[in-house]
């Protein structure tokens, strides 16, 4: 009993820090309608900044409480300034873009920040100072609780009260609340939205950084904090209701207590529990505990460029010729190149499956790696557990992925836009934590080793040919699905939900089926990947793999059909080349994503088209003549 009280109090202390991050995220979303993926990075920067100001530089250690809290505040203020800069330079350009792009741009930013943090502060964990005056422990019901935790428990409600005061008692706060409800009307009353947005973003960044800074005495500072925090903050914001600060507080307490007790009751499935709660809340109250339905007018993905046409005889001939040409590769290249080429083929299939979901189905996924990973584990378990041959593994993998996608998809397709994207991320994290924690079956972070292709396919060239055949056929299948009746139904739901429903199409069912199909093909790619590498680790279904897929699709061009394949080839090649030059691939990748979103949201294909059009037209009809 006493122990439970202490556990609850520890949970509350964590809730404070989580609330700080989540409140900033939710405020920013409320006003700008942008889900800031880089919010965890701001938290992390706040922590590193506080470490530097309180102990890194050496001076504050002697300055007592004033030095410590001064350092914390200084760090938060510095990050707030950075947040304002990011808003002005980057986000201001993409407020009107489809929901996918702000998510991606801020993710690119997160990648860059993580790498920069590694550059500046190094890869090792940093241990911060204890808070002066709060080093000791307090005895409650015979159990000891760090005094600092008590301070944190007080901090959460204090910040909530402070935010409430700012939002209700200052003119600026009233403007923020008004803008959360109706941005255009606030503008028509003479309020400069740009400045308001910058201010809100700075405040959000300040809160996130403060949340990170106050964690310094409790836990080590490291460069993986960003992803760890952003996922929890997402869950809190979604559960609380996007844009609702009080909801964020309630959800932060809920999540922190779930973490605290989940570990006691179900040590294995703590994370799973968290996401299950989120999934249940979203299904029962799609807009969160205190959120309100709002007509999401913004499309999740951009409209396609022109009409997609079936390939026709010439197209298939070109495709076959290309496949034939690719089949010759092992005759001219060494084993390393051949094995890299096989990996590129696998990722082309992965990207194409994601494209079925996003480009064709209009459902943005930030968790597509889940199905890739399940495919890999399915194959691995079939090979290791049953001793099955590769052919069976290549069926078992996709089957496991389909099973997972069937369950997750049922939840996901009930939502749309950003909410759907975040729910896919949540399910991917569930899948990841299951394989990470279920040691007996998955080997946990040791992974599963020794998954080798059948003897006939074990040679790199032979395996390359297998990959080429499987991926080639699968990509051709994906393409033919786009032009099948079902593909038309899927595209109909993406183009106009209202019209689709009005011609008898059951959107939920069609998108669910599309979700499952995409998962199955991703699972096939994952199964091949397991045999290519000979091993599977939880990383196969981690966030970076999902993001790789997104960038491939985006790079090639979301609105075209060949885009994902072109993108996968370009991206993997780039990754290999850049990685050979520098250790800072994440920095380059992050910059690339930001650049893509701003300069070429229609990808390489779109860029090429625009260049061609500009060249052929020269000085086209100017003026503001609307499209005819």
């Amino acid at each position, binding site marked *: 009993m006493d122990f439970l009280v202490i556990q609850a109090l520890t949970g509350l202390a964590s809730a404070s820090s989580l609330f700080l991050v989540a409140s900033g995220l939710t405020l920013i979303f409320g006003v700008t309608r942008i889900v800031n993926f880089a919010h965890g990075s701001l938290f992390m920067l706040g922590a590193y900044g506080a470490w530097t100001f309180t102990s890194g530089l050496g001076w504050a250690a002697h300055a007592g409480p004033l030095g410590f809290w001064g350092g914390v505040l200084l760090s938060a203020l510095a990050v707030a300034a950075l947040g304002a800069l990011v808003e002005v330079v980057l986000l201001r350009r993409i407020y009107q873009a489809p929901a996918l792009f702000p998510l991606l741009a801020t993710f690119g930013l997160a990648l860059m920040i993580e790498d920069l943090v590694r550059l500046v502060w190094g890869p090792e964990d940093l241990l911060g100072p204890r808070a002066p005056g709060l080093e000791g422990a307090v005895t409650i019901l015979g159990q000891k609780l760090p005094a600092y935790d008590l301070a944190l428990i007080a901090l959460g409600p204090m910040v909530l009260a402070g935010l409430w005061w700012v939002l209700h008692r200052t003119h600026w706060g009233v403007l923020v609340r008004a803008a959360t409800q109706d941005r255009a009307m606030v503008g028509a009353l003479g309020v400069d939205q740009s400045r308001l947005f910058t201010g809100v973003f700075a405040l959000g960044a300040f809160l996130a950084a403060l949340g990170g800074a106050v964690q310094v005495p409790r836990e080590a500072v490291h460069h993986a904090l960003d992803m760890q925090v952003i996922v929890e903050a997402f869950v809190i914001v979604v559960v609380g209701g996007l844009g609702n600060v009080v909801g964020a507080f309630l959800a932060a307490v809920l999540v922190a207590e779930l973490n605290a007790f989940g570990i006691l009751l179900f040590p294995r499935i703590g994370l799973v529990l968290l996401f299950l709660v989120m999934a249940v809340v979203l299904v029962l109250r799609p807009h969160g505990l205190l959120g309100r339905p709002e007509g999401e007018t913004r499309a999740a993905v951009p*409209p396609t460029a022109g*009409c997609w046409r079936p390939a026709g005889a010439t197209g298939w001939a070109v495709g076959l010729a290309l496949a034939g040409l690719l089949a010759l590769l092992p005759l001219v290249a060494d084993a390393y190149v051949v094995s890299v080429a096989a990996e590129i083929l696998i990722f082309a299939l992965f990207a194409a499956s994601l494209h079925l979901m996003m480009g064709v189905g209009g459902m943005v996924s930030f968790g597509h790696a889940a199905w890739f990973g399940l495919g890999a584990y399915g194959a691995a378990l079939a090979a290791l557990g049953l001793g099955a041959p590769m052919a069976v593994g290549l069926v078992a993998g996709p089957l496991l992925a389909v099973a997972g996608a069937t369950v997750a998809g049922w939840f996901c397709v009930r939502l749309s836009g950003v909410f759907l994207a975040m729910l896919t991320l949540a399910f991917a994290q569930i899948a990841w934590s299951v394989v990470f924690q279920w040691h007996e079956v998955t080997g946990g972070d040791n992974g599963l080793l020794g998954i080798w292709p059948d003897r006939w396919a074990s040679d790199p060239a032979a395996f390359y040919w297998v990959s080429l055949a499987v991926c080639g056929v699968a990509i051709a299948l994906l393409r033919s699905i786009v*032009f*099948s009746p079902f593909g*038309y*139904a899927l595209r109909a739901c993406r183009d106009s939900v209202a019209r689709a429903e009005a011609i008898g199409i059951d959107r939920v069912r069609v998108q669910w089926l599309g979700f499952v199909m995409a998962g199955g093909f991703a699972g096939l790619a994952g199964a091949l990947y397991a045999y290519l590498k000979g091993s599977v680790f939880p990383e196969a279904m981690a966030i970076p793999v999902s993001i790789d897929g997104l960038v491939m699709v985006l790079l090639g061009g979301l609105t075209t059909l060949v885009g994902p394949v072109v993108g996968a080839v370009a991206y993997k090649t780039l990754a290999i080349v850049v990685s050979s030059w520098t250790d800072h691939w994440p920095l380059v990748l992050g910059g690339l994503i930001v650049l893509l979103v701003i300069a070429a949201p229609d990808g390489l294909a779109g860029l090429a088209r625009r260049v061609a059009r500009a060249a052929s037209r020269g000085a086209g009809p100017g003026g503001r003549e609307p499209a005819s």
Partner: protein
Amino acid sequence: MTAALEVHGLRKRFGGVRAVDDVGFTLAIGEMLALIGPNGAGKSTCFNMLTGQVRPDTGAIRLFGRDIAGLPPRRIWRLGVGRTFQVTATFGSMTVAENVQVALMSHHRRLRWPWPRADRLDAGPARDLLALVGMADQAERGCGLLAYGDLKRLELAIALANDPRVLLMDEPTAGMAPRERAALMDLTARIVAERGLSVLFTEHDMDVVFGHADRVLVLDRGRLVAEGTPDEVRADARVRAVYLGDRPPSEAGP
């Protein structure tokens, strides 16, 4: 039975506002019935309850005797109700013909098939429908490239794909040039006559209403204030009050 649609006691509240308050009317078979009223009168809410986009709080909507109140749009469509949208809702990534083909494939319950190439399925009937609305020559164009008036005609072709008995048209001529408006409504009238359809449409353009409606319903503040032939409605004092504000203010002088 002579009624295509019978509506009784239809009500819908949004918060404290009675958007539609006890509305009832009948759409006779073969009739073109216009639903008009000032902004905020409840036309859209009323219309959307018929199409299934909005669930009525209470009331009955009988389609050839069968109650369809509260059914989702796709079920209502399957029962033989076609509709057009005020702001055109077409599939931008498809050609004009494909837009109609999807509707036809859905009608024939073919859309679950993941296999054969669909661009040839139902191509013939799609052409026929496009020819009917005068769009045959544009069948292969991307529908993102169409002029607005042509999109409206495409909407009509899509709405006819399930061989409907009742057509619901939400401001069929909004956003069109005056000459196109008359042409579209003439076309609609011809199709209605040929196929024995019954049409309910909302409309702002009074030329369209009085030129093409057999009967007119007038809504004001959620209630039906007048109903009758165009001439009757035009002469109705309550309608004049709604549209002209004939009521003298109690205190304000000139």
